[in-house]
């Protein structure tokens, strides 16, 4: 199925009895496939609005992320999401997986910049929530509910997002560590200062750690130099450490103070951490997934890349009964990727 409009998507779904799998750029194979029929969003690829003066945009799900950023950059703006994009990632896919990159430190995640959404449910209902203004509390915030729902509640057809100015200056700092505890001490010291960094990441690979910060704005260089010597940082390479085609990537929902434990649990693997947020991506061979989980228990560790090769992709979710009811209410015919999400949803 490849609807060319939201209305067509609704018509297709209304008559659909087979399980379906919304697909954008197919860059994040994080849920096992069970023969669901692909529901491709490639025909929903319009930038419906770019309200330059208002710093907002309305985008259909199939808009390639890179194309959207290019359109915004032409007006000196950006959508402050920067998940790893091996090429072809779409807005819908990023929203469905709530994927994020280093800019999350300053701008928040998908949930924090999405101000409205239009979704298509399995009975063909087309429902919108939120709006296209950056401040709005009318009605329930269904956009947040669908962000990170992995296509299991319905089709995310379009979203309204908040944009930010594209900085003209950036400056980065890199500090090196070989002791995880010393690294944590520095992270905590900096996290308590009002730095206003855009990015605040730790990378650990090959027994060595790097603390990486990026600043933007008129005084980016001054801000960076107050921390340490300026350095060229390849942020694309940092993001890329969140992905693998060989082993598994575990996303760890932790605390900043967990950092040494996460590094030790990773062993010979690599870690990239949004250090002040406590979120880490740990890349290890498949056979080490269980060890990492056990070492970091009770922190939630979700397997993203490589999920098809491990037994337990999802940690136990909180309030599973409520989530099951949400699934039952929004997708009563259970056609949106049944059985592959948390708790067998």
């Amino acid at each position, binding site marked *: 199925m490849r609807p060319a409009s939201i209305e067509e998507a609704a018509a297709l779904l209304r008559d659909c009895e087979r399980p379906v799998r919304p697909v954008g750029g197919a860059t994040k194979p994080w849920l096992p496939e069970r023969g669901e029929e692909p529901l491709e969003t490639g025909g929903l690829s319009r930038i419906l609005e770019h309200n330059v*003066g208002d710093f907002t945009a309305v985008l259909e799900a199939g808009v390639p992320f890179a194309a959207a950023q290019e359109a915004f950059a032409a007006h000196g703006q950006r959508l402050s999401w920067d998940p790893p994009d091996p090429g072809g990632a779409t807005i819908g896919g990023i929203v469905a997986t709530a994927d994020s990159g280093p800019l999350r430190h300053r701008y928040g995640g998908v949930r924090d910049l999405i101000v409205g959404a239009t979704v298509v449910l399995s009975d063909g209902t087309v429902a919108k929530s939120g709006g296209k*203004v950056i401040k709005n509390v009318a009605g329930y915030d269904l956009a947040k509910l669908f962000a990170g729902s992995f296509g299991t509640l319905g089709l995310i057809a379009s979203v309204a997002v908040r944009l930010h100015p594209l900085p003209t200056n950036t400056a980065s700092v890199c500090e090196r560590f070989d002791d995880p505890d010393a690294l944590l001490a520095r992270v905590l010291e900096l996290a308590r200062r009002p730095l206003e960094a855009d990015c605040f990441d730790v990378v650990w690979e090959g027994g060595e750690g790097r603390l990486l910060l990026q600043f933007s704005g008129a005084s980016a260089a001054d801000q960076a130099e107050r921390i340490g010597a300026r350095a060229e940082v390849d942020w694309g390479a940092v993001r890329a450490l969140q992905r693998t085609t060989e082993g598994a990537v575990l996303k760890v929902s932790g605390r900043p103070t967990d950092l040494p434990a996460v590094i030790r649990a990773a062993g010979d693997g690599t870690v990239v951490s949004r250090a002040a947020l406590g979120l880490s991506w740990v890349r290890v061979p498949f056979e080490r997934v269980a060890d990492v989980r056990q070492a970091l228990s009770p922190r939630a560790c979700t397997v993203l890349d490589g999920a098809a090769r491990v037994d337990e992709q999802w940690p136990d979710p909180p309030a599973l009964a409520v989530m099951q009811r949400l699934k039952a209410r929004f997708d009563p015919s259970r056609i949106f990727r049944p059985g592959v999400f948390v708790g067998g949803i």
Partner: protein
Amino acid sequence: MDGRVEAAPEGPAKVEEAPREAPRDISALVAELRRIVGDEWVYTAEHQLRTYESDGLLQYHATPACAVLPGTADEVQACVRACAREQVSWVARGAGSGLSGGALPVEDGVLLVLSRMKRILEIDLDNGRVCVEPGVTNANVSAAVGPEFFYPPDPSSQIVCSIGGNVAENSGGAHCFKYGFTTNYVTGLEIVLADGERITVGGYELDPPGYDLLGAFVGSEGTLGVATKIWLRVVPSPETVKTLVAFFDSTHAAGEAVSEIVQSGVVPGAIEMMDARSIEASEQMANAGYPVGRAAALLVELDGSQHECEARFDDVVAICERCGSDDVRVARDEAERQLFWKTRKAAFPAMGRISPNYFVQDGVIPRTKLPEVLERIEALAREYDMIVANVFHAGDGNLHPLVCYDGDKPGDAERAEELSGKIIDACLEAGGSITGEHGVGVDKKKHMPKMFGEADLDAFQRLRCSFDPAGLANPGKLMPTPRLCGEVPGPYRQHPLEAAGLAERF
């Protein structure tokens, strides 16, 4: 939310809109509530209940059968469970400073007052977290972690409003253009659902697995359950703050300055605008030396790193001057900055001095539509021959027009309400929203169908039913008309073949 409306209108009474429990004898329930929390924390006498008959929006009032003040999460859970058993509706209430009638009691239902639950449970600044009970005031969260850290969402009522209420309403404030809203700061919730179950979602850590229940719950106006424990992200206090007030000859010119500031790449901590009426009223109360008669005042605050603030502040001054301001006043010290803010925050109460009553509106528009919407509001005010004063959170396009009227003049309140509704229509026509921070409650219910279609409301109801299928938590709020949840699809059972991976479920 913004400040309590001190000159709140008596207005057209809307008690008939308050949902009503079927009149029946709930003395057994009241007796059980007394057993749970102790006799002294259950109020049933008329004079005691009067305290709770309204929230900050005084034109709506209703009397519950009883008000119960639990002291712990266990007591809240036991009370909610008792209500569920008896199928009696209940409403959670924090400080009662909300401005949408969101905490309006259900006639003959139970009011759950959380003001006793005001303990700060944990502070962990290494991880940037604080865990509090729902009755803690917004200001006390910042006080508990200050001065090194602070809690950014700052509704004008922050001295009195409770965090539990902030969670229910997804409260904003003057600084949310830069810092975001309550929903961007809640990292965990312990919630008692309407069936009496207690769940914990998130906590210290971000991104708990599964659906974003925090995102769904924050801003749900007390209709999905009651939060008994709240984990919040707190952030380091900015190194420096610089504040100015610039005066303009037209709101149009001030609006231009706002656009240019934002376009230039500056993200100010706050940008607030007042029109001539608001300046005049506020000056009478705050005596800040503001030039009465000027058409618009723009308060701009930059905060953050010293370098960045200094680099940008001169830009902001230059933009204001270029857009026609010949009077830019920079706060020289903290005292002067406080005076600027006092004057801005005096706008609501000050209006009570020049008008016996007023309605406060809470519309949102795309910022670029500011000039045309302001012209529309002026035209409406002329047409109705009524005074409308304007204060805005200009950065995010959140307007608070104050529609002045005299409650003693027959028909005046009704006309003011009609005018107020037309202002909302103008916001919607401009692509905006019916509420930016006060919430829908009972007050904006009638406007919901203008913003959301039947299918949208149906989707909202699916969410509501997932949390509270019996519809006992704060019924009659947020949704324009009462709805039932209908059949719950039966629990899904996995087919053995499907479980074995041998077959799909078709």
